[in-house]
């Protein structure tokens, strides 16, 4: 086992030795190396990046721009001009909806959204449709949480300008064939926006291979600090888009009446940027690369299968989505007959186990599935067999502790 997979690299587990943390799809814990990188930035490199004409500001700029280079390389983008730093995936999606959407989408157009989308990849499009008079269409998935290429082809109309879909669903853990989707969309003249929040931390993602037009993800779901996220966009698209936010360091020239805007990527990064967060993201990428996705996937898959196989043995427990444990990418949403997910999570909490309960920011999906909400456990590579076994032990007691006999 690679030494960086070990929990001991994550200080939160020294703070709470009994904690079983299985809410990794919501946010991941941070390894010491990432915390050190953020600290190093503020101790040794901090100044306002891209502005000051002095040594420290140059260091800050270097830290920030080398993080951008690391992201570009990590997701296989052509140019650093295609990498925009944002706060998180939600902000990235809003940027696309406001800037690209308001420029290109009009009344009579259609926007297609996958029904399993997180609210952050649904609400910006719902609002955009309302404001522009465009139609909002939903693509419906199977019980396994997958969309077929046939369904996508059937749902696209000549007026569909944009398709929004997550590569890995935060409820089902199912992985969509994004590359095929992108091909189908492009044949139809449709732009594809891919939410990589649950995929980029767990599987190798290459925008070159997937050929998506936009890809978004959050740093905090992949070991990095909160408040740093990424928007990848094809350069030709980003170039033609108007700025999203206006302010400092995104301009070239400003007069009383007008302004010209900076080149990519700075055009979309108004105001002082989160250079410390970017340094943390850079360290997180280094951490992941040092382990390698092959090892990460192997560790996460083994834990997923261990949990899945034990869960299906427990009476009253139902797992949402595929009944093949290998199709879940560490995300197991479930229900327990007769027990509301909120009570499930409260019982787990009492046993020192952190899981999620509710609709996981996917209300339309839960309505589509005909359930009000669900519980979710989600795995990261630093979890271990003991975490899974404690999760299972508690899960076995849930119905009994809610007063059901047997």
């Amino acid at each position, binding site marked *: 086992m690679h030494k960086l997979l070990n929990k001991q690299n994550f200080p939160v587990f020294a703070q709470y030795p009994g904690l079983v943390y299985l809410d990794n799809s919501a946010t991941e814990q941070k390894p010491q190396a990432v915390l050190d990188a953020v600290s190093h930035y503020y101790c040794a490199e901090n100044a306002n990046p891209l502005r000051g004409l002095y040594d420290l500001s140059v260091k800050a700029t270097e830290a920030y721009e080398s993080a951008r280079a690391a992201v570009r390389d990590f997701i296989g983008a052509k140019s650093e001009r295609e990498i925009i730093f944002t706060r998180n995936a939600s902000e990235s999606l809003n940027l696309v909806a406001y800037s690209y959407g308001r420029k290109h989408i009009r009344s009579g157009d259609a926007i297609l959204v996958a029904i399993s989308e997180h609210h952050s990849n649904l609400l910006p499009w719902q609002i955009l449709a309302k404001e522009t008079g465009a139609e909002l269409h939903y693509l419906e998935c199977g019980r396994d949480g997958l969309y077929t290429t046939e369904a996508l082809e059937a749902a696209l109309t000549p007026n569909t300008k944009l398709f929004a879909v997550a590569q890995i669903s935060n409820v089902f853990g199912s992985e969509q064939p994004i590359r095929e989707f992108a091909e189908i969309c492009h044949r139809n003249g449709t732009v594809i926006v891919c939410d990589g929040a649950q995929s980029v931390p767990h599987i190798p993602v290459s925008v070159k291979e997937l050929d998506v037009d936009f890809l978004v993800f959050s740093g905090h779901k992949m070991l990095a600090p909160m408040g740093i996220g990424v928007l990848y966009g094809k350069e030709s698209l980003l170039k033609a888009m108007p700025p999203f936010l206006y302010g400092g360091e995104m301009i070239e020239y400003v007069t009383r009446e007008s302004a010209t805007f900076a080149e990519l990527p700075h055009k979309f990064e108004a105001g002082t940027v989160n250079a410390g967060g970017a340094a943390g993201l850079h360290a997180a990428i280094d951490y992941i690369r040092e382990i390698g996705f092959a090892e990460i996937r192997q560790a996460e898959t083994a834990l997923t299968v261990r949990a899945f196989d034990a869960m299906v043995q427990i009476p009253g427990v139902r797992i949402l989505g595929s009944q093949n444990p290998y199709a879940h990418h560490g995300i197991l949403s479930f229900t327990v007959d007769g*027990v509301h997910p909120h009570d499930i999570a409260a*019982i787990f909490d009492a046993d020192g186990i952190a899981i999620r309960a509710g609709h996981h920011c996917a209300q339309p999906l*839960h309505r589509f599935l005909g359930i*009000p909400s669900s519980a979710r456990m989600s795995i990261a590579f630093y979890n271990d067999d003991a975490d899974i076994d404690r999760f299972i032990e508690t899960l076995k007691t849930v119905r009994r*502790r*809610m*007063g059901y006999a047997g």
Partner: protein
Amino acid sequence: MPDNFYDEVLLDHNLHPQHLHELPCATCSHAGMNPSCGDEITLHLSLQNGVIEDASYTGVGCAISQASADIMLDLVIGKTEEEALHLKALFSKMIAGEITEAELEELEEAGALQNIAKMPARVKCAMLGWRTLEHMLAPKG
């Protein structure tokens, strides 16, 4: 092991609710919601001359929201609107940890929810039924 996660009274009301049904004679209904946890409760009241003659609830929610609503209806059926609002005020006081022994007696089984004050994440669940009731009874300006 003595294994119940919640108080016995609460578990019993959750598993065997008395008032979870439609109410054909209802004079008013109102839906209450906790969006963060997905609790949805619709209260149905049959109000006659300022008295809650009958009442029920429908919907889905966690054990605390369901049991709290069921216990509340046990308490308020047959009471005047004023008396029901008085009980709501007492319940809020209990959750805030400011209730006296004598007042706690008035709440009868609802006293089983006293410890919810120690679970801040669940206060909204316990209050859902009561907040909805208050909304329906509050003097309309």
